[in-house]
Structure formats: C-alpha cells, structure tokens
C-alpha cells in the first residue's frame, strides 16, 4: 500500500474546479420583471471574467478541512514561540464574541443602539489602563505594529504642539522587536540603536550621548526580548524625561508582569498591548489581533478620534479633540477581538491576571533551569516569562544549528521556539511556555530538547534532514524569493513549478 499515493488532496481549490458546480445558491430575484432596472451602461460594465473556483459545498468544506490538517495550532500542541505568548485561547471568549448582537451591529449605527458595545469598549479601556498604569487610550489599532505606529504619531503630535520640531532621534535597543525601528522610521524618526550591556540590559549610561534637544525618546519592552527585567528602567526614564523625551512601552511581553509592576509606574508615556498575546485572543494564523494604545495624561489630547465617553447615563462617541492625530482605523478596530479580551479579563479577575503572570514566569524559569546545561544561556540569571538559549556550542561541535533543532521538533508535533531572535544571541532559541501549560508538558519538552541535543552529537544527519513526517519537507525559500510565484494561473501544470 505504501507505494500508492493519493493525489486529490494536494490540489489547489482552483484545480478542483469543474464547470457548473455550485457551493451556494443565492435566492432568486423577488423583484417583478417589469419593475427591474435596465442594465448599466457598458461604460461601467465589467468585461473580463475572473476565474474563481466552481466547487460544491462538500468540496469546499473538505478542501479547507484538509488544509486545516496541514496546519498546527495551540489547540493541538505545545507552542513555546518566544515573544508571541501562545497561551490557550479559552472557548468562552468565542461564545461571547459570536453573540448575534455583537456580530451583527453596524459601525455607523446610531449610538443609542450600540450602548452595550460602547460600554464594553469604555470599560475595557479602563481595565487596560489599570493593568498598565496609564490614564486613557484608543482601541483602534489592529495589531501591535500599528499600535507602535500610533504611539510614534502621538510622540510627533506632542512635540509639534510644543514647537519642538528638532526632536527626531528615537532610541531602540539592539534587542528590540524588528517592528520597533520600522514603526519609528515610518513615522519619520531617525532610529538610533544602542547595544545591550554585559547584563543584556539597557544601561542608562549608554543614553548619555543622546540626551539633548534632538531626542524624541526611546522604545522599550520590559521585560526585554531576552526575558530579563530592565532593572534600571526608573533611572533611564528619569534621564529621558529630563532631556525632554518620551518613553514608549512595547507591550508584547506584558504577560510577565500583570499585577506585579506597571509600565506607567516605570515612567512610560505610551503603551501598546497585544490582546492576542497577553489577553488570550486567538492568533488566527496571523491575525486578526488587536493593539490598543494607552497613554499618560499629557498625551490624551492627541489620541485618535472618536473617543468613547460616558456621561453617567449614556455612552457616546466624542469627536471633539482638536489636537487629535486623526484616525488609524476606518471604524472601531477589531471589535470582535476586544469582546474576547474583555471576556478573558472578567473571567481572570484581578487575582487571575496576577496569577497568570506569576505562573508564566514560574514555567519559564522551570524550563530555563532544566535546559541551561545542555544549551547555553548567554545571559544567565532569573528570567521573566521567556528566556533565550543558544545552540552555538552544539553548532560548533556538530554542525547542527538552531534551525535543525527546530525542524526536529516539528517531527514530534511541538512548535519550535522563536529562532535567531534576538539578533544579539548566536543560534538563538527563544522559549516562552506561558502559564497555561502543565508541568508534565514542560517536562516532556525539556526531555525532548535534551534528546535532540544528544541526537545532534550522535546522528547529526537525522536532524540535518528533519522534518521527516510533516506534509512537506524543508522548503526552498531562496527559489520562492528569486522567482516569485504568488498566485495560481490557469493551465499551470502543477508539476511545472516555474514555467
């Protein structure tokens, strides 16, 4: 039997198309023929026919279920992807978000008919402010990167208002998420990278050369991407503020510190949160997420419009914010994601949120201790919610890289850690277990990681050629980039990849 191969599964939906098949029938037109309108003038009429698949409902359902089987999610297995906080996505969040009176409301309905939605947004903003120590915020940004961009626009508006047009220098540590410098640059700032000190931390002394009237501020995540708490943050904040600059907090790592320490108390002026990380909303294989932005008092006037306000009786939109940066979303951001995050916060409550961070940190440290002998810990000591191992020694001894270890994990149905990030650790494997994983899962993962390291010394070829059991083997990324094929075209022979 093993020589018989099923090929039907491997077709694209377009290759399953057969003329005349239908997956859905719209109702017949109930407007009487005599009352029907004439067709449009040919100036406006479409002439080219798009090639959409013609498939039945069962074809469609099977097609996507088959694709689903060739993917991997948190619901299937351990996903210790560093900086991504792949915690369990509670199903009650989905139940709440699929209530009809949430899913069927229109963004431009009269506000008297969406009081529940506005109340939820208003209260969620308040809770997120309490968790971060900020004063108010906007729920518009769709993702963390857009939150960063919004934050940079707020920086800009603040300095413009004060006439401080020279403030263009924005500092980011070399360990920062790649979106930080990209967002700052796109918002028009000059990015200055500062190195980590020997502890892996931002050293306030390194800020000295930039503390002048050209300083806009700094973007930081704390704990940083090494999983280390920036112990000198208060000192750094003071220096930045004294020089007239602002501090931006990248909330990607908020899962480490809820209820323990708050960005606002550390001195940050703008915070974004990733609701799809810390607040348990599903990642959706790349979105939709949500990246709310919270600010300190002095930046409130610049927040996007409309604001959601409560007068004691009713909720409403308020557009009256003369210094606003404007809008960063067409409507209210990813409202469906806000409902999920709100539900999560209400289930967890004040104690549950704090407990989540405590156990996330416990899980990370437990794994760190188990793995730091086999792999290298470039920056030793207590970590927060994640830590970064280096496979440098294994690579030098055996030729097996962090990538090979990751591919070995795929065969064992474990999602690999984040690889080759942060850039300051060679052969980096960044591990974030999250609080929702049991000790047994962590024990098994540690055993597997140790076994993979042993395998690297014993039978490196086994890892070089991994994965062996996945739907495809290692893929040729260079070919994909050199000769981009980003769409199917009719009459393309599936065996002829690059005609």
């Amino acid at each position, binding site marked *: 039997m093993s020589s018989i191969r099923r090929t039907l599964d*491997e077709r*694209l939906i377009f290759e399953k198309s057969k003329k005349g098949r*239908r997956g*859905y*029938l719209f109702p017949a*037109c109930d407007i009487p023929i005599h009352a029907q*309108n004439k067709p449009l003038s040919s100036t*406006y*009429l479409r002439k080219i026919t798009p090639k*959409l698949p013609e498939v039945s409902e069962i074809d*469609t*359902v099977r097609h996507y279920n*088959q*694709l689903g089987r*060739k*993917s991997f999610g948190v*619901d299937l297995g351990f996903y210790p992807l560093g900086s991504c906080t792949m915690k369990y996505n*509670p199903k009650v969040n989905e139940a709440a978000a699929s209530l009809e009176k949430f*899913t*069927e*409301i229109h963004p431009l309905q*009269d506000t008297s008919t969406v009081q*529940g939605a506005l109340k939820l947004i208003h209260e969620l903003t308040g809770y997120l402010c309490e*968790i971060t120590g900020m004063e108010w915020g906007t729920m518009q940004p*769709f*993702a963390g990167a*857009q939150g960063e961009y919004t934050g940079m626009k707020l920086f800009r508006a603040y300095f413009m208002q004060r006439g401080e047009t020279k403030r263009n220098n924005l500092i980011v540590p070399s360990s920062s998420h*790649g*979106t930080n410098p990209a967002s700052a640059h796109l918002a028009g700032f000059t990015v200055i990278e500062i190195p980590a000190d020997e502890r892996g931390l931002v050293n306030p002394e390194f800020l000295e050369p930039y503390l002048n009237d050209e300083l806009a501020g700094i973007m930081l995540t704390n704990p940083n991407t090494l999983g280390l708490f920036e*112990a000198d943050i208060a000192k750094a904040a003071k220096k930045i503020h004294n020089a007239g600059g602002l501090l931006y907090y990248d909330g990607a790592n908020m899962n480490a510190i809820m209820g323990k*320490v708050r960005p606002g108390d550390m001195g940050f002026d703008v915070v974004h949160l990733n609701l799809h990380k810390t607040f348990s909303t599903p*990642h959706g*294989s*790349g*979105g939709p997420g949500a990246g709310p932005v919270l600010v300190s008092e002095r930046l409130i006037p610049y927040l996007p419009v409309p604001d959601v306000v409560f007068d004691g009786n009713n909720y409403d939109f308020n557009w009256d914010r003369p210094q606003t*940066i404007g809008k*960063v*979303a*067409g409507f209210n*951001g*990813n*409202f469906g994601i806000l409902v999920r995050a709100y539900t999560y916060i209400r*289930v967890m*409550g004040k104690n549950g949120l*704090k407990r989540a961070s405590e156990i996330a940190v416990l899980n990370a*440290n437990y794994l760190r*201790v*188990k793995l730091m002998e086999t792999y290298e810990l470039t920056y030793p000591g207590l970590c927060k919610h994640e830590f970064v191992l280096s496979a440098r020694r294994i690579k030098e001894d055996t030729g097996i890289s962090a990538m090979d270890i990751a591919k070995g994990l795929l065969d064992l149905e474990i999602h690999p850690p984040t690889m080759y*990030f942060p850039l300051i650790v060679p052969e980096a494997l960044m591990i974030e277990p999250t*609080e929702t994983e049991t*000790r047994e899962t962590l024990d098994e993962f540690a055993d597997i990681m140790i076994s993979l390291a042993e395998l690297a010394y014993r039978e490196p070829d086994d890892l070089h050629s991994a994965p062996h059991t996945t739907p*495809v083997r290692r*893929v040729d*990324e260079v070919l*994909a980039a050199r000769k*981009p094929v*980003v*769409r*199917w075209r009719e009459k393309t022979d599936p065996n002829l*990849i690059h005609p």
Partner: protein
Amino acid sequence: MNSYIPHSEEDVREMLLAVGVQEIDDLFSDVPEELRLKRDLNIPEGLSEEEVLSLMRKYASMNTLGTSYLGCGSYDRIIPSAVSGIVSLPTFATAYTPYQPEISQGVLQAIFEFQTMICELTGLDVSNASLYDGHTAAAEAAAMCFNQRRKSQTLLVSPTVHPFTLKVLKSYFSDMGFSITVLPEKDGLPVFDSLPDYLDSSLAGLFVQSPNIYGLLEDYSGVADMLHDEGALFVISSDPMSLGMVKSQAEWGADIAIGDTQPFGLHQCFGGPTAGYIAAREKLLRKMPGRISGQTVDTDGNRAFVLTLQAREQHIKRERATSNICSNQALAALATSVYLSLAGWDGIQKAAELSYQKAHYLAAKLAATAGLSPAFSAPFFCEFTIDFTSEERAGKFLDSMKKRGIFAGVHLGSLSQNRKGLVTIAVTEKRTIEELDCYVESAMEAVNE
C-alpha cells in the same frame, strides 16, 4: 484556582524548589522594590464561565438590531452557513503566523489561494495575505505610490472617497511632509478637469473610490493614461461586491487596487475584524506591504508554499523596512476565500445583480411614492443618496424609521461636516421585497410626520 492555569499548589511548590527559590515573589526579585505594585489591581474578581456568559449576553442585549440599510463600508450581506465552521477550525484559529512552513502548508496554501482570488477579481497581477481593513489599505497603497517615485510629495485624492479613509490618509502622511490634496467635487463626482495642473514630478499618484461615498459609480476613462504618462500611479478602491458587475480596477487602468473584503463572508461586527485587500501590477510586487505566500518546492521536489519576499520586512530590515506590518487579518481573509469558493463567479454576479436590482427598486419607489428622489443623477450600484436638505430633517427621518425597526441609512453629515442632510441608503441581496415595500410605507409615514 483558575481553569486556564493548570498548576496545583504541589506543582508550584516543587517547581519553585527546582528553580531554587522559596516563593513566587522571589521570581520577581529583579524588579526594583520601589516599582512593584503593592496593591491589588482595581479590576473585579474573576467570574465563572457561566457568569461571564450571562454578563456578555447582558452587554449584547444593550445593542439593538434592525432591518439594515446601512452601508458606507460595512454591509448586512448573506453569509453561507459553511463559512463559520471552517474559520473555527483550531489549526486556523489558534495558529500563529506561518513561520514554520512544514507544519503550516494549510495556512500558506489558503493565503496563496486568497491572493489568487483577489488578483482575479481586481484583474491585477499580484496580491498579499490581506491588510488590516480597507481604510488602512489606502494608506499602504499611498505609501507604495510615494516609495515608487523618489521625491514625490503629493497624493491626489478624490473628494468622494470615504471620509474615514481620508482621515486615515491624513493621519498617516500629513505630519510627514507629504501633501494629501483633495480634488474638487461636482454632482457627487470628482472633477478631473484640474488633473493636468498636478501632473509633475511631485505627484505620487491619484486615489479614487468607486462606488463612491454616495454609492455612485465613477467614470475613469482616460485618467490612467494621463497619470502613467507622468509616471504617477493610479489607485482605485472598490467594494469587492461591485466587481461582480462593474469594471474591475485593472479595466480602468489602475496600478493598485484596494478595498475591504467584509462583503464577502464577514460579519459587520461593529466594524471589525474584516480584511483589507490589495493587488498591484507585477512591477510593484517588491514594494507591496505585508505577508505574501509564494509557491516553491520542498527537498523532495513537491509543490510547497512559504512566506516569501521577507527581505522587505521589518524583522530583517528593521528601520530600513518599507512597511512595519508583520501580521494580516488571516482568519478574516480565510472567511473571504471560503465565501468566494462557495459562491463562485456565478454567485458573485448573482449577489451583485440582486443588490443592484433591489437598490434600484427601492430608489424608484421612494421617488415615486414618498417624494424622496436620489440627490445625484450618476449611475449607482447598490447605494444611493437622498438629500433631506438639513441635519434636522435627516435626523428626524432616521429616528422615525428607527422606531419602526428600520435602520434606514447613514447620515453622511455624521462622517463629514460638509454633507449635512445627506442620507446614503444601502440595499443588499439579503433584503426581501417585503422589507423594501415596508421601507417605502414607513418612509411615507415618516416624511409626513
């Protein structure tokens, strides 16, 4: 105890021991004492699943639904039943961005198919995995225009694009030394007479929308040639449902097509999540923002898919990246792919035709029986606009209709100051003739109140 955190007290004790500390707080000893939060968060105590569901039902019940004629970027359209089951599949819903292609072929293939469908609908060559929404897609398209022409400073914008899209464009670019210049408007349409005045090396491109904010279809004959002769780009935003009937962006000569796929299988959900779409000519591929799934082969020579052209992206390029976008609206894009697979081209044409016929039926009946004639004479697709001449009269009409359970239209005055009294009415394939007749009867009463 919390059902999302599985640790027993014994687990915690033993794990602390393994780490070499006494208690949980020791794990936070690196946080300076003076920064630590020394009180509880001011957030209510946790709820059980049953309690939270009951609370959420209460919040939901504070929202009201009506027979909806609201449009302007979000529509009450038919969603086939098969869509929701597929977008809840755990390997789509609970997966991260497909960084590990070997275990993400399903997601990557779905994105590749989505890209193909968007290319087919718009008539353009290349597309991506989706953007946040149709409005931010306009900003990303504008960035492509500025990037492809060095030293360009001006984006011309039609006055009849969605006012919120214009707000997003201004937020993104007006503090960056770029000019967002709005063309004049007449009879609900942009006036292109002055276009030649702007044709110089500072022009990045022209951005228009059809159907426009009033629902009107715009005629772009000759526009693309003028722009291309100068070296500027042409960007057209369209409600993708209209593409089931009217000219695609490529047929008008556009270089970039954008919009929002909400009409294709996505709930209105107070405005999100939806998915922005973008497609462009081949030569702009490497300027395109966001994730792109590309076809390649694996080591056995089998067809495979992978996120490609990542060298454009921020995790490699950092501050030299041309966009900061590192996610998309994958699950929303998946809903659109499933919708388009089920409907097929035949279904999209049908839904577009139904919307067109029903909208025109309602417009004609309102004009004939309630004295409510469309404000503009240009052809429309499924939305038309009535001028109530004042904010008060428009408000009174909409309130009166609301009392009858009908969300009768969007008051454009609530979107932009200079459109007070104008109400845009959207009719989709979902509205029945009974509902349309009920609208007309209610409107006759409402205007006479």
